[in-house]
């Protein structure tokens, strides 16, 4: 009998599959398609202090085995998320949800996490440090150990919920950044966020997306994700949530062997709205094929 449950920062998940932020809305669109309580959990749409429309369109580009998006954190703002989205979610999801939080200044992060700390429904706060720091010359918080640690420390002070820092892969040394976040009080690390990519429209001779560059995701980036998950999981002692191009149950197993305690599924949800359901349903078969009795046993099993 395939034992799929894992424990992420003290909270039990019936399986390691987590729908990734930005590909699952606030859950209820997908609840029309299948019972989302079958998920380990999901990370809701990146939420900021203020409401945001995001970037101009087009925001999407096709790539070989992947896509680029430049949505730009469109969201109704944390207050509306708490007053409107979460009550809607409670109608179709009775598990703890992961709150994905973004900001453009330390104060942004602190305000948003403080507000979310009071939400019973939220089990973990996933802090996206890939956004540009408006007070830091626009460089993303996630590109230096110092600024990533600064965000981590600041949100640590305002919430007792487990904090999972979501790292950007567009860096020279992911390990030093992950360690800095752990030292600053992170309860977990999730990676990888999207890779910075670009496509050009040959007819128009202009970037395909209005924002020029955007976040590259999809199965194409899986090998980079596995590498970084492996590096980080071998360097920190807090749990690692692996993501980046995960498309099938085999990918989930590979991520866990690399060191992931749980695995997020992102872009795949946009191509196959049933991706998470299909992966979870297929996991027992794949576990059998590779003689895995309990997924807990294979976390970091790649030696």
């Amino acid at each position, binding site marked *: 009998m395939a034992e799929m449950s894992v424990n992420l920062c003290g909270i039990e998940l019936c399986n390691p599959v987590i729908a990734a932020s930005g590909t699952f809305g606030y859950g209820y669109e997908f609840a029309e398609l299948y019972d989302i309580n079958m998920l380990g959990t999901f990370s809701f749409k990146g939420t900021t202090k203020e409401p945001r429309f*995001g970037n101009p*369109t087009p925001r999407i580009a096709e790539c070989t085995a992947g896509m680029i998006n430049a949505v730009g954190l469109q969201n109704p703002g944390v207050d509306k998320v708490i007053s409107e989205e979460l009550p809607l979610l409670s109608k179709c999801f009775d598990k703890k949800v992961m709150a994905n939080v973004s900001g453009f200044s330390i104060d942004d992060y602190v305000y948003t996490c403080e507000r979310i700390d009071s939400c019973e429904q939220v089990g973990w706060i996933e802090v996206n440090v890939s956004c540009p720091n408006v007070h830091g010359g626009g460089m993303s918080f996630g590109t230096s150990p110092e600024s990533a640690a600064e965000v981590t420390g600041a949100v640590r002070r305002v919430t007792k919920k487990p904090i999972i820092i979501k790292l950007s892969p567009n860096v020279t040394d992911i390990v030093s950044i992950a360690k800095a976040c752990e030292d600053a009080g992170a309860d977990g690390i999730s990676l990888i966020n999207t890779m910075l990519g670009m496509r050009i429209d040959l007819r128009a001779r202009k970037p395909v997306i209005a924002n020029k560059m955007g976040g590259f995701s*999809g199965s194409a980036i899986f090998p980079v994700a596995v590498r970084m998950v492996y590096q980080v999981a071998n360097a920190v002692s807090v749990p690692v949530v692996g993501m980046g191009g995960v498309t099938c149950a085999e990918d989930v197993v590979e991520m866990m062997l690399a060191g992931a305690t749980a695995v997020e599924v992102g872009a795949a949800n946009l191509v196959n709205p049933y991706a998470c359901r299909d992966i979870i349903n297929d996991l027992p078969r794949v576990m059998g094929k590779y003689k895995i009795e309990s997924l807990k046993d294979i976390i970091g099993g790649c030696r």
Partner: protein
Amino acid sequence: MKQSIFTIINNAPLTRDVFRMTLLGDTSAITAAGQFVNVKLDGLYLRRPISVCDQSGDELTLIYKVVGKGTELMSGMRGGELDLLTGLGNGYDLSKSGDRPLLIGGGVGVPPLYLLAKRLIAEGKRVSVILGFNTKSEMFYENEFRDLGARVTVTTADGSYGVKGFVTAAMPENYTYVYTCGPQPMLKAVYDVSATSGQFSFEERMGCGFGACMGCSCKTLYGNKRICKDGPVLVKEEIIWQK
């Protein structure tokens, strides 16, 4: 929304680069004219949204123009199966039509108006249709609309057929409501000259096509909307024209 496998029973060109594909499958999720399907194609990552031209029973008709890799692949299909997400988008609201609705389509904006005309006529409305094309060789579906019992006017930008000029050159005297689909400049022109309220179907590059990724958002007077889920049809009163 429903994901299911359709069988291609026909796929042939209507003009040099406009094709009509007929498929059989579970169409139960298609609830309104003006909705679209999202097509999974081998070798491409994102699905491709194609508006529904006609549907009756388990038969589905799509008309698409070859503009990129996706539609190029589709145009080469001589049968086989397609993985579709069906019943996407809000579609047109028939209840607003009044008894003399005016339907205006430009180029590949024409197809979704076919099912709309069919249903309005079934409800006993007197439907007028303006079909705009660049030139005669790109024209399609004039007779199909006529066979439905609609009053059809064709315009061509170069005057090679029908009324010379854009669709707005053929606006009739009186109509009760406007339904339109086509390139944004045409929509804007119709918006400016139309005397009544109406429903406008917009295009945007989409990620998922079912409201999850926020890839195709636009601002309206009624708030931010996702073209794929809250659209593609917007009512005249809410439209904000960008730049």
